[in-house]
């Protein structure tokens, strides 16, 4: 029932943020950055807890691999299905059965609400990587639920 709690709490978060009173005038989506920030601080703290028994990571790719397997499994009970990279700081993580969308649709119905349900997770990834010393931008795209792609773009100094 633990997973149930997370899912329901997450959907309440989404509906709270998209609520009429919290919307900036003129915006259709409500305040996505609030959700993203919730994710960021959750991820930032969570990664500390998850890596406490781990040795240091070899390099950036190693870190991202850790995110795809252990990190993802601990939140979503399954690893990422596909990881691609151009070896220049761009990583694409694909989940073919993203948990927050599994129950919503398998196709294009309700696609308009998809951004609301990935904002938190984008933040989660960004927060976790930030605490591992990788500053990045995370964006996500959904073409057909419940498949979800997260693009990680590492910021080099």
């Amino acid at each position, binding site marked *: 029932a633990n997973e149930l709690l997370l899912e329901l709490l997450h959907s309440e978060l989404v509906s709270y943020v998209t609520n009429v009173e919290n919307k900036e005038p003129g915006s259709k989506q409500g305040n996505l950055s609030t959700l993203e920030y919730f994710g960021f601080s959750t991820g930032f703290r969570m990664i500390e807890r998850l890596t406490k028994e781990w040795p240091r990571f070899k390099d950036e790719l190693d870190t991202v691999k850790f995110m795809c397997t252990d990190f993802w499994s601990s939140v979503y009970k399954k690893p990422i299905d596909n990881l691609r990279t151009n070896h220049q700081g761009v990583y694409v993580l694909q989940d073919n059965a993203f948990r927050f969308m599994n129950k919503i*649709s398998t196709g294009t119905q*309700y696609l308009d609400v998809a951004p609301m349900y990935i904002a938190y997770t984008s933040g989660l990834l960004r927060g976790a990587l930030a605490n591992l010393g990788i500053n990045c931008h995370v964006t996500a795209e959904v073409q057909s639920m419940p498949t979800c792609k997260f693009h990680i773009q590492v910021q080099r100094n």
Partner: protein
Amino acid sequence: MTIHNLYIFDKNGTLLFYTEWNRLKNSGITREEEAKLMYGMLFSIKSFVAKISPLDMKKGFLCYKTNKYALHYLETPTGLKFILNTDVNAHDVRELLQKIYSQVYVEYIVMNPVCKLDEPIKSELFKEKLDELIKNSPFFVSKSL
């Protein structure tokens, strides 16, 4: 054996969902009127059964049969009502109704944050999963009468 149609009502009597597979005779009234009629009848049967019962009941009204079809009724503790019409020989329909509730309704409506719980069901995924469950059930055979 065959499955005719399914109604889902919420606790206030709103028709949440209706679908049919093998319905050969139409009521000749609109879907809304039909739903009201159906809900009214079930409501009456429920109170009738409760008043007339000589013993304390656990489950109350479960089903009725005519010579042509059987109506199976499942009410959840939260007041949702599932009504499935089948032919008279179908058995284990309660189990199927329970599955519709626990494996399809709870999973794909209650856990779908986009679906409002007191409004008619629009989710395509729900319809897909329901159809799959019904068509895989051992007594779904489209009988040509």
